[in-house]
């Protein structure tokens, strides 16, 4: 029997007024946090002169900034191309990260290898080298293998930079899975794949969703490697956004418009992911 929990997390014992107060607090904090983003969206509909002066809540809105940033003449980076490149790189690297990290987390949490502590430490140590330094050998290598200005180099790099995060996070979530369930599956004769699909993935779904979302966000917004390695072809959305920055003329409204467009895919990804992060089925049902 599957018990679905409805109502508040703290259920019966809680007073209605406390519930309302907490909900209002959540809303208030959300609006405060969101305010600068809201202001950015507002700026995207302004004339440059309005965006670079005293704060204006009321102004005559225009879509011109959106036209400005998307009218990329032939020969310059178009939003469509940049978004396609970004989508391919982000989706591929995230899928590869999950494909690598889920079994790795299994081998570090559920049936740990003897040196699991060292392995975890190694993974996190790969993130210690400052990006500004690692770009030099990476650029040299990419140049040597003629992979500059390709999507391949970004997919490989983004997988490498997201892998430690995914391994650590997934391991933390897998460790939570009750031992009884795993051993019950063992007794049933289930192999790794069966265990994964029937027990681990469903229970760790919120954690996997959170991990995937973070990988997507980090890869989508990654600017440094992308612009250093792919300034000509295979350019991604962050580079497209920053083409609007100028040192001789205001650009905040244009930048806001570009940023709004750039954020829409990740906002959608966030919305999808957080749907998975709602408490649902009770684990007791498995028994």
């Amino acid at each position, binding site marked *: 029997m599957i018990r679905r929990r409805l109502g508040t997390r703290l259920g019966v014992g809680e007073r209605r007024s406390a519930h309302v107060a907490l*909900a209002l607090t959540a809303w208030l904090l959300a609006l405060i946090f969101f305010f600068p983003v809201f202001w950015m969206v507002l700026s995207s509909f302004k004339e440059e002169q309005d965006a670079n002066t*005293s704060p204006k809540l009321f102004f005559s809105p225009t879509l011109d900034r959106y036209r400005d940033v998307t009218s990329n003449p032939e020969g310059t980076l178009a939003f469509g191309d940049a978004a396609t490149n970004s989508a391919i790189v982000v989706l591929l690297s995230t899928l590869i990260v999950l494909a690598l990290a889920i079994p*790795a987390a299994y*081998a570090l949490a559920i049936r740990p290898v003897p040196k*699991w502590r060292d392995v975890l430490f190694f993974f996190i140590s790969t993130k210690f*080298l400052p990006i500004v330094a690692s770009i030099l*050998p990476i650029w040299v290598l990419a140049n040597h293998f003629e992979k500059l200005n390709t999507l391949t180099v970004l997919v490989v790099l983004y997988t490498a930079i997201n892998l430690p995060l995914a391994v650590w996070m997934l391991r933390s979530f897998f460790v939570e899975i009750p031992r009884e369930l795993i051993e019950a599956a063992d007794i049933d004769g289930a192999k790794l794949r069966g265990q994964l699909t029937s027990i681990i993935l469903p*229970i760790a779904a919120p954690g996997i969703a959170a991990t995937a979302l973070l990988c997507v966000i980090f890869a989508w917004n990654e600017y440094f490697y992308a612009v250093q390695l792919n300034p000509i072809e295979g350019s991604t959305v962050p580079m497209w956004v920053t083409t609007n*920055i100028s040192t001789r003329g205001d650009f905040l409204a244009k930048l806001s418009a570009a940023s709004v467009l750039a954020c829409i895919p990740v906002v959608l990804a966030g919305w999808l992911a957080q749907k998975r992060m709602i408490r649902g089925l009770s684990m007791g049902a498995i028994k």
Partner: protein
Amino acid sequence: MTSVTAARTSPADPFSRPWRRRLPLLPALLFAIVVTQVPFLLSVYYSFTEWSINPPTPRHFIGLDNYQTLVSDPFFREAAWTSVLMTVSTVLISLGLGTLLAVLLDRHFFGQGIVRTLLITPFLIMPVVAGLIWKNQMFSGLYGVLNWVLERLGFNSIEFVSQYPLASIVTVLVWQWTPFMMLIMLAGLQSQSTDVLEAAKVDGASVFGTFRQLTLPHLRRYMELCALLGTIYVVQVFDQVDVMTGGGPDSTNIPYFVYERSIGGGWDFGLASAYSIVVVLVSIVVATVALRVLSRLLTDEARA
């Protein structure tokens, strides 16, 4: 319990238990080793060379000279201290806020989906854009929203970024990283077994009691995970420093400092590599202490 599974294999079998355990780990491990260690070893090599491209000089070996320069550089120490301040304050504040938000959000209430999405948005903005929006539209001494509010309330305007560069940068970083902490804490809260909570309710435990004695200890692991991951990322922050202050005695952190040595104008790749290797060594020491001595992340009992 385990005798059933133990009987299946024998040590002579090449697919015996140790290797069967290692197999799922190998793809990830091999990939990480190849893609990260080759650049790292190259960086180590560069750190022992003089390699400058303006004016272009062919790369040649100079031994420990770069490291000697590094040791006598007071600006490096200054940047290291700024990095420590920036990272610790950002991680602590955003962890606290993120936990608070996660607890508030781990409940069903009207519009919770919208609230969660609103709260993630700061994290979705490119760091360069976030830095520029905050600097020019929130913090600006003349045109900022914050000063607009201050002046309406009768206070004098404050030049936030000019007068408080580090605090301004930390504010933007906290704004962007709190959602990150919140996401992980939220996923952590949801992995808490509901059976235990239901049992506590049935036993008549209070809301706060349940939270303090059951939820918080469970969350401790996730808080440590957040602190670790957050530190790793915040220590590498570069964009906000670049666009908000352009560096300076109070805001240049290690990444910006190394950048200035290399493609930011110094064009001394050998020296920049040497600084970076030192950073890696120090990070290894700090991380070892933090993980093995202070935290419980690596001290879980291994499963059978």
